[in-house]
């Protein structure tokens, strides 16, 4: 509301200026001309969404792992067979949220299961065309899934392990508009995996034009070129400046409200705050686009509103079990009792997060906080250290990522309390790349880590974080045969009751083993002008701007 006033005021002052200029001797017909142009400019502004973030496009190859900038662009310029469905949030006009196991049709107009769920049949929507004019067919579906499985990207890791498909023969074209995925066994995660933005449907004719002998899937070409077919076209990608998306005129659904999405690269967080306060941008996105402290400072700012919903991102203290004393469960438990979580929540998260009570996010099916037992208790921590033989404490390095404000602040809170039980923690700040290298090599002693599961499924989450075979993602080097067995046996279990019970059992063991230092679950927070609506938050956290609109 407030923003509209400001907006109009500006318009009026310009108009007043024009009248004044007219009075100064400009001929009347002439002064009408700029006025019309001005109105047109205002209308264009109305239909343009300007967003500030701090990410760029590293690659546009759908099958690759990408930066947030790359993923968000892909999610807007292509279409997937299905989407995670979103439902309106009560009392939050114009905002939408995914719920577990809800999907909406996109290029696949319907789906069904066969062979007890081992086969998923997708019916391709008829009459949809790629920008080239070629129709979207089951052959295009197969080509795109084959490409994911066989091209040197990231889907070639995901598809075999999570969809139990390791041969292109399992992707079957039944007729021009029927595509079937014949998995080895049914899995409750199948639709979630299909909904990943990596599985966008590509126009095979266009890809084939750009293949070479050594690059049969045109990965080089697709890195920088978009075939499209989604609600928006990528019209400009100027690294360090901006990315511009424009509505796709030939889209199979009605055109989106915003004709242009301008994504401005603003690397400095202080600038992002200032831009919002001045209403020079409509919204700040990214992860983390704004730290909780800055979001707090924007509360009540006239003309702005904050949209914050629970998200599945987990923040935790990772304790490397290959490095003593963290191989000792009592030490890990002591760390958990020494984390001043009651102080961290209000002073670092400012209400934009929830305390972590289980290794599984509180939005995920089978989440069970009942086994949670850790609370801030230095006496207990001291006693545990004594039992572990570290009565005098020890010195350790606590690694954090440079520039991640909540992690830096939480580290300082913990450092102070650790000191009281004799643990001297040196805070080591590392750039993202250094941090990740040390993490995967197992060089960290303890560190503050974060993890977000794109698929909101307990076993997807547990597999990556707690299975001893999940090298590179099980950053604690936790190894418990009982947990491995429970995860592997229930990964694709279709009896959901049994599966959820197994998940609860794993949660209980992981809490007892104090694998993580339990910190918090993030909120997904966006700050925007009051007239921006229609934001949809999905499991993968990337914005699809198709549903966004402006309303006075």
């Amino acid at each position, binding site marked *: 509301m407030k923003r509209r006033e400001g907006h109009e005021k500006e318009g009026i002052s310009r108009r007043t200026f024009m009248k004044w200029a007219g009075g100064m001797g400009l001929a009347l017909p002439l002064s009408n001309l700029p006025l019309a142009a001005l109105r047109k400019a205002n209308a264009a*502004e109305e239909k343009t969404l300007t967003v500030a973030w701090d990410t760029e496009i590293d690659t546009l190859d759908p099958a690759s792992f990408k930066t947030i900038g790359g993923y968000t662009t892909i999610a807007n310029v292509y279409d997937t067979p299905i989407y995670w469905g979103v439902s309106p949030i009560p009392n939050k006009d114009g905002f939408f949220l995914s719920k577990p196991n809800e999907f909406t049709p996109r290029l696949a107009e319907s789906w069904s299961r066969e062979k007890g769920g081992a086969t998923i049949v997708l019916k391709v929507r008829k009459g949809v065309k790629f920008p080239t004019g070629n129709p979207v067919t089951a052959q295009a579906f197969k080509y795109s899934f084959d490409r994911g499985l066989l091209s040197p990207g990231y889907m070639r890791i995901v598809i075999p392990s999570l969809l139990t498909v390791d041969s292109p023969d399992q992707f079957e074209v039944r007729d021009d508009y029927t595509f079937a995925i014949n998995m080895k066994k049914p899995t409750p995660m199948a639709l979630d995996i299909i909904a990943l933005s990596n599985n966008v449907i590509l126009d095979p004719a266009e890809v084939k034009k750009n293949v070479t002998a050594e690059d049969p899937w045109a990965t080089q070409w697709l890195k920088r070129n978009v075939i499209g077919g989604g609600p928006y076209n990528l019209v400009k990608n100027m690294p360090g400046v901006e990315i511009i998306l424009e509505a796709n005129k030939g889209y199979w659904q009605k055109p989106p409200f915003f004709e242009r999405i301008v994504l401005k690269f603003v690397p400095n967080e202080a600038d992002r705050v200032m831009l919002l306060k001045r209403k020079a941008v409509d919204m700040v996105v990214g992860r983390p686009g704004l730290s909780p402290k800055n979001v707090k400072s924007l509360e009540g700012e006239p003309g702005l509103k904050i949209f914050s919903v629970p998200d599945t991102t987990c923040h935790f203290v990772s304790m490397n079990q290959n490095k003593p004393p963290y191989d000792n469960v009592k030490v890990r438990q002591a760390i958990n009792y020494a984390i001043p979580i009651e102080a961290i929540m209000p002073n670092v998260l400012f209400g934009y997060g929830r305390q972590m009570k289980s290794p599984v996010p509180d939005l995920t099916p089978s989440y069970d906080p009942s086994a949670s037992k850790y609370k801030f208790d230095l006496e207990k921590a001291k006693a545990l250290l004594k039992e572990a033989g570290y009565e005098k404490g020890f010195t350790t390095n606590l690694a954090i990522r440079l520039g991640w404000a909540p992690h830096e602040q939480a580290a300082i809170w913990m450092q102070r309390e650790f000191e009281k039980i004799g643990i001297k923690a040196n805070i080591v700040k590392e750039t993202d790349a250094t941090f990740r*290298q040390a993490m995967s090599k197992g060089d960290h002693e303890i560190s503050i880590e974060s993890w977000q599961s794109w698929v909101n499924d307990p076993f997807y989450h547990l597999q990556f974080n707690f299975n001893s075979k999940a090298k590179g993602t099980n950053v604690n080097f936790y190894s418990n045969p009982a947990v491995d067995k429970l995860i592997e046996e229930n990964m694709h279990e279709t009896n959901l009751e049994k599966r959820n019970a197994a998940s609860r059992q794993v949660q209980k063991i992981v809490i007892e083993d104090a694998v993580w230092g339990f910190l918090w679950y993030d909120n997904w927070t966006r700050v925007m002008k009051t007239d921006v609506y229609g934001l949809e938050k999905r499991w993968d956290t990337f914005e699809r701007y198709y549903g966004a609109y402006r309303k006075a």
Partner: protein
Amino acid sequence: MGLSRYLFKRLLMVIPTLLGVTLITFTLTYLLPGNPAIVKAGPFATPEHLALMEKEMGLDRPIYVQYWRYLSGVARGDLGQSSSTGRPVLEDFLQRIPATLELTLASLMIAVGLGIPLAVVSAVRRDSFLDHACRIVGVGGVAMPTFWTGILLLYIFFYYFGLAPPPLGRLSSGVPPPASFTGLYTLDSLLTGNFRALGSSLHHLLLPAVTLGFSVMAPLTRMVRATMLEVLSSDYIKAAEASGLPQRQIVYGDALRNTLIPVITLIGVIFGFLMGGNVVVELVFGWPGIGNYAVTSLMSKDAQPIQSFVLFVSVVYVLVNLLVDIAYGLADPRIRLR
């Protein structure tokens, strides 16, 4: 004959200098912790996937092979690929150099245009109120870090008064960039008579250029003032004064001209400093130049752009030094004899 030999020798010396620079930049980024393949491969990469990635990126080869590949690439104009933008580094550089050059030239103009007159006035009216004021301004410029000056100016002129444009690049959104000849938006829009782009680009240029210009004005002012004082107390000025020449002519005619000779060197050094020292100002103002690029690349351990940035700044310094030497050689025959 002497001059061309001097030039030839001078140019020849550039080659080992640049080779040394490439060796240092390569070694530095090689030693820098952080494996670019890990960043590229993503968090779910298996060790096999990672090994493949390293092989693709040539990271499994011995260091001297990697250096040779880098060096021969540079010679062909191939600076490698940026992993954060997915484009060839050369392309990223060509897009960003004009932005940095424009900012550098503008801030140099501000520093020289304001700094030299200020210095002359404070030298002539030594210990006056004006002299002290200049000293305070000068020291302030050095003492205040540029990110601080930048944020302060942004806060006052953009946030508080709304006079300056948002720190979102070089033009307002909706203003198409002028036809490109030099890549300097102000110059290009002047050349094409595109006054809308000219206004917008000047508007966007002002605050960052002032911030940067202010930071280098101080050493310039101090040096010009000191040299001016020295010159003013020399015998020939005294002789001129004794002959009753007007003060104006003495100061601006004789003294200033002799003062400016060492200043040429300083301006050269400042230019080099600005081309590389833009980093912070570019970051604060969202200026899409190479400094901004270098910082973003450093954060993601994007090795090739960092190497290229250091290489670029070194080349600028080498060229500036060469030009200064040549200018000196032309101006002062004694230098050539050495």
